[in-house]
């Protein structure tokens, strides 16, 4: 087994959680699977990709988000904070070391500048929330997507959610970074899963560790297994590759990914154009920017680049999907 076996054990959910930890539910999405969908963003991820477009999803705990654009400087939060962790005259505004995440400041904030990121929700409420748009799922052939973070860090929750959704014939889809305990997945989640969107980022394991925080062996092992399921028509699998300039989008890396896909019988894949909006989110969580490749860091990818990346897969007979 690869060197990250212990990591898998560590993230396997052994004790059923009373509640699911999520940070957002997005409705009416058109790009997260077929039809009109609701997406549950679970919080917590075993990876820590430097370009993560949801940096607030990585941490498995609650976080305080502060959006300076929305702040009207009423100071109600500073008055409410029992720890004196808010100082609107300081450049950082929030003294994160002092914050105990009591979120009293969020309760009093009139403008929504302060928000709690990460909420526990019990299954009945979660099901109720995702079914608000059930009529639209039914009419459009849509359904529910779980994303994150890594949804499969909370397999109890995902399994329970999906089993309830399947009772109502709602289509279920997982977006995963691929690092999960396959055995637990097979028992708890797979029976209720229609589709998996499986991300592959870097073929070189050292580079994967450097940029994503973990090596990639287990991810690739899981990929082989779910692809086998796809070949047996148990589920549908769509491999996806996030394009990050100079890191994942190199000819070398994409060619290696394409070859790996071919080995596993992949016929369709999706490229995810680089999303620079992640930069906007960092200051809200007091996070540091860990990736900078110059001017392009803050820009959407030019079409020519997407064409180049597409061609690497198409030339091997793999059909490429891409929302531009």
């Amino acid at each position, binding site marked *: 087994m690869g060197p990250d076996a212990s990591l898998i054990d560590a993230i396997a959910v052994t004790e059923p959680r009373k509640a699911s930890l999520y940070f957002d539910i997005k409705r009416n999405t*058109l790009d997260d699977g077929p039809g*009109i969908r609701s997406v549950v963003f679970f919080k917590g991820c075993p990876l820590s990709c430097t370009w993560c477009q949801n940096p607030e999803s990585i941490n498995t705990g609650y976080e305080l988000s502060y959006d300076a654009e929305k702040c009207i400087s009423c100071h109600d939060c500073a008055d409410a904070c029992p720890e004196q962790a808010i100082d609107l005259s300081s450049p950082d505004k929030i003294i994160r070391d002092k914050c105990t995440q009591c979120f009293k400041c969020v309760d009093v904030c009139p403008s929504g500048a302060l928000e709690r990121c990460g909420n526990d929700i019990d299954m009945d409420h979660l099901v109720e929330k995702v079914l608000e748009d059930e009529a639209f799922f039914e009419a459009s052939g849509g359904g529910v997507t779980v994303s994150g973070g890594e949804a499969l860090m909370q397999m109890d929750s995902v399994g329970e959610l999906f089993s309830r959704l399947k009772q109502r014939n709602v289509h279920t889809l997982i977006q995963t970074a691929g690092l999960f305990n396959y055995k637990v997945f097979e028992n708890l989640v797979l029976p209720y899963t229609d589709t998996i969107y499986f991300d592959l980022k870097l073929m070189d394991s050292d580079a994967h560790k450097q940029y994503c925080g973990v090596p990639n062996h287990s991810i690739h092992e899981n990929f082989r297994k779910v692809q086998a399921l796809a070949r047996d028509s148990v589920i549908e699998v769509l491999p996806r590759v996030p394009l990050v300039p100079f890191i994942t989008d190199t000819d070398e890396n994409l060619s290696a990914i394409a070859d790996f896909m071919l080995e596993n019988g992949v016929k369709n894949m999706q490229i995810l154009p680089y999303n620079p909006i992640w930069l906007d989110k960092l200051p809200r969580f007091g996070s540091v920017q860990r990736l900078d490749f110059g001017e392009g860091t803050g820009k959407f990818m030019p079409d020519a680049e997407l064409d180049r990346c597409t061609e690497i897969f198409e030339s091997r007979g793999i059909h490429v999907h891409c929302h531009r």
Partner: protein
Amino acid sequence: MNAITNVVGQSLEDGARVARLKKAVDEATYGGCIERAVLWSEYYMDEANDGKSTAVQIAEATRHVLANKTVKIYPDELIVGNFTAKRVAGICYPELGGLGIMIGVDKLPTRKVNPLEISEDEQAKLQSYIPFWMDKNMVYLAFDGQEEQMRFVKEQIEALQYQLYEAGGIAHLAPGYEKVIKLGAEGIIAEVEAFEAQTNDPSKLDFYQSVKISMNALAEFGDRYATEARRLAEAEADPQRKLDLERIAEVCARVPRYGATSFYEAVQSMTLTHIAIFQETIGETTCPGRVDQFLNSYYEEDLAAGRISRQEAKDILGAFCVKLCETIPMYSDELTSMLGGLTSWEVVTIGGQDSEGNDATNELSFILLELADELRMRQPNFHVRLHENTPKAFYDEVIRVNFGPGSAPAMYNDETIIESMMNVGYSLEDARDYVAIGCVEPTAPGKTLGSTDAGMYNMALALEMALNEGCQFGSDRQIGVKTPPVSSMKSMDDVLDAYKVQVKHQLGKLHADLQKCEQFHAKYHPTPITSATLEGCLEQGVCSTQGGAKYNFSGIQGTGMAVVADSLGAIESAVFEDKWLTLEELVAHLKDNLSDEVVRTRLKGIDKFGNDIPKADAWMKWVGDHYSDSIHALGKNTRGGQYLAGVYSNTSHTHFGGLINATPNGRRAGETFASGFAPENGADKRGSTALINSMNRIDFKKFANGINFNIKLDASSYDCDDGKSALGSMYKVYFKRHGMQVQANMLDPKILIEARDNPELHPNLLIRVSGYSAYFNDLSPEMQDEVISRSSNGAEQ
């Protein structure tokens, strides 16, 4: 007489002719035309006409106009008929609301919004009739005494509480063009004579006399085009055009005098009748209706007999559609701010079901949709009827046409509308035949005088007055009832009681004024041509203005629904539940225009309509139901029909919003309201599905005069196969759960900002505003900003 064999010849080059007609109309300068006002005045100033009955005078005055107005046949035209002496122009009606225009006519060419070209000679001529009409116009005759007249005019201009469009003329109907096409003027005269023989009632005989005069005038109007076409044909060098003109001459010699014997004749007959009605009385919002239904038998017969091809039929209909763009309203500055743009609201309704409930979508429905897509002009307004059995191919085509430069056809749900119409007295068969009038108003064509836009009512004023003892904030002008001061209001019910009292009082006032207008029309402005086409009028011998039509209604629109609903929700939450401020404190903040940013932000943060939050949505339902019940409680109009509630706003939401002080939902003084039934701008933050869930909590069947639900969508999200399919599903869900109407605003903010800053870049950018289409450049600057802000919100979602 025989039908013309090869109807339009080979000169139609796959739509190229229609494209040239469109170009000519698009490029024409907008004008004001004085011809109708001059001829009308001539007739009434001629003492020989004194002493005749009112009906005969109207008929003869109309005949005088039709017989003497300029007749023009423009290059490339196959469908002929000119509304005015200019290519694109408005008509002034001195006996109705035209006096205001006549007095300020010198400003028309240079005003900022919607300037109209009108020469100095024309201005002087028009103004020379002012003294004559001073004591013969609508307001003078409708209201007793100078004080009342002045009050009414002042209130109409200010338009704070309400504005009555019926004060400018009734219109707002779909005449029975089907009948004229089938019988022709001669056939109608024969019908009149049969009724005449059965009665001695002098008032009936007088009405019949007026109809006969009018029908003869209509027949002779056709003759004038035949003569003109013959004259042009003789002088025409191009042999192909000569052939066209000879055909026009043949067709116009037959229609509208006789019943049509071909598709071409049918469309020509309808066109000249439509134009004649614009001379008889104000024409805006006179709607052709279900063109695909009543023309279909002519199309199918011609097609089967090899007399016409699909493309030829499309070109004829295309020429008709372009023609509808040649008329624009001639509004005063005040009215322009309420009715932004230069739309004449001539609605063509497409698809739907027949009187037995079977799907009625046909090839002409598809052709009209194609034209809607290809022409994308201000007129006609294309409105589409949908129901459970609408063919998928047609529905897909409707969704496809949703995309394009700004324009999307409004979509109607047959199931909800038919039920709402039956609730107010339409028979099932007649309800199934409904058309949309003007913005969104359903009526049965050819049998209804619905006066669907009798008035617009500012709902938010009642709320402001409920919080300030019947006055606006900072004013001691007692517009409303002196309700208790807020210091004595101890519960939500106390607030609601005051609101209800103010609404009742205002609507009572509106009702009294409106009835004066109704009585004016009945007494002074009968409409014999229109009435001859409406079922019931000839049978009863009663003009439609006096209640002769089979169905009679008056529609009154409530504007500011969401601002009132969100404000009531905010009061309940802030004052009576969370109690973070008292009602007195809240009102003090409102009077201070919510300058305290913390308070304003808190108020804005309270749950609003449109987010799939049951409690917030319940307030919208409460306000809507209360409004509908209040309108129904007004009883019957003087034509014997019910008052109906509608919720659409044209651009009155901007006008009314401009006059209302800060509101408890966190809105500051003067800010616009949302349009129609939509959530307040920017208040719906959870996306389209949440919004539709909220909308589906409303009981739309209570709004038989129609509602407008303008959903703003980011075009780029949906303009792909997946997106179109998702969009189609979304509308289906809305309709399946008893939605009533929806119209998409497919927006790309960048193009709008460009159009605002550089109007010349996008001169023909079509933008949907609350149920009707207008070019973006026709809108006032405030309205342009409103559209931009709306579209920006859409893009953020």
